[in-house]
């Protein structure tokens, strides 16, 4: 399916569960509502026209103001792709696990939990992963994260 077909099809099928954020420069990007994330993910995989059976990538983003989760899906059978984005609640960032839909999400979700502090609901193995086992200095990928004893990249004032 071409980008336009995917766009119109997804908008038609899911209606108000997601909104199109189109930059026109890459694959269609949809912002999924936080509450509908799991349903939309399952429907995207199970829909016979879309068949997004393959999870390319899943991760968090900290824009400085808010936390987001981004997800890239592809269909092996249909050879098309879509990008999804979920804006998380900044106070208590939390996202439903999609491990039951794509087993591949397992480590990606652990990584999100560890590096961004996004709580993954329904994930049973949220343990230290990339960081040392005794890490207790917060979530390093957040923009406001600050750790002592770090050599700073110098600022250049010419």
């Amino acid at each position, binding site marked *: 399916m071409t980008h336009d077909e995917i766009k119109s099809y997804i908008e038609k099928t899911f209606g108000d569960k997601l909104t199109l954020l189109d930059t026109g420069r890459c694959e269609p990007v949809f912002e999924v509502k936080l509450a509908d994330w799991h349903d939309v993910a399952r429907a995207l995989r199970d829909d016979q026209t879309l068949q997004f059976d393959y999870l390319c990538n899943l991760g968090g983003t900290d824009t400085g103001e808010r936390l987001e989760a981004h997800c890239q899906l592809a269909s092996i059978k249909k050879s098309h792709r879509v990008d999804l984005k979920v804006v998380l609640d900044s106070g208590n960032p939390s996202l439903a696990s999609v491990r039951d839909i794509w087993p591949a999400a397992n480590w990606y979700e652990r990584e999100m939990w560890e590096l961004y502090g996004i709580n993954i609901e329904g994930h049973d193995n949220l343990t230290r992963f990339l960081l040392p086992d005794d890490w207790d200095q917060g979530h390093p990928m957040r923009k406001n994260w600050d750790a002592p004893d770090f050599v700073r*990249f110098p600022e250049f004032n010419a």
Partner: protein
Amino acid sequence: MGVLKDFFNLVKGMTITGKHLGRHAVTIQYPEQKMEMFERSRGVVVLLSDKETGELNCTMCMLCMRACPTAAIQIDAPRDENKKRVLNSFVIDNTLCCYCGLCEEACNFCAIKMAPLYEFSTWNKDDLVWDVKKLQEMGRDVPYEDTRKKKPAAADKPAAEKKPAAAANPGADAKPAAPEAKPAAPEAKPAAPEAKPAAPTEKPEETKDEAAPSKAEPSDDDKKGDV
């Protein structure tokens, strides 16, 4: 017959290894024999000197320092009362260098280069922090193609003789990267008119681009980063 076929395949493998037994080695004996390095090989960073005068080509424009992704280059060159840059120190920390070659590409004056030299291991980590003297010495014999814009020295011999200091080292100018600031030093005026038109025609847009940050510096959000 499966057994015989397997046996045959085992023997086939042994003939391949056996065949190599008599061949010449493809490796070399390192300290005695050395590989011929390619001219573009990115080894250690050196500072290049002018082929004629032996002065450093560096104009202290700081572009390499700003292009370096690991902050391995530290240049300290404050402006003096004439708004000329004076080189206090030019230090490259080879333990930080990641050999990406961005400094070489950033430089417009053939001053810094990743030379095809690779033997600089030491027993002491501190010895890997090189100052300008060491860098110049390492770069002494490195061949390079001088792609600089025609300098006053080359363009106008008498002028160069008259004012050797300014001519040999145009980098002493305040803003060498910015074309309009080229003939900043008033003594170099006689030589400058030839240089002035040459400079913008060669790489006009690039030079402008490179020069831009040095003016718009404060807007650049070089926030804290970690190395």
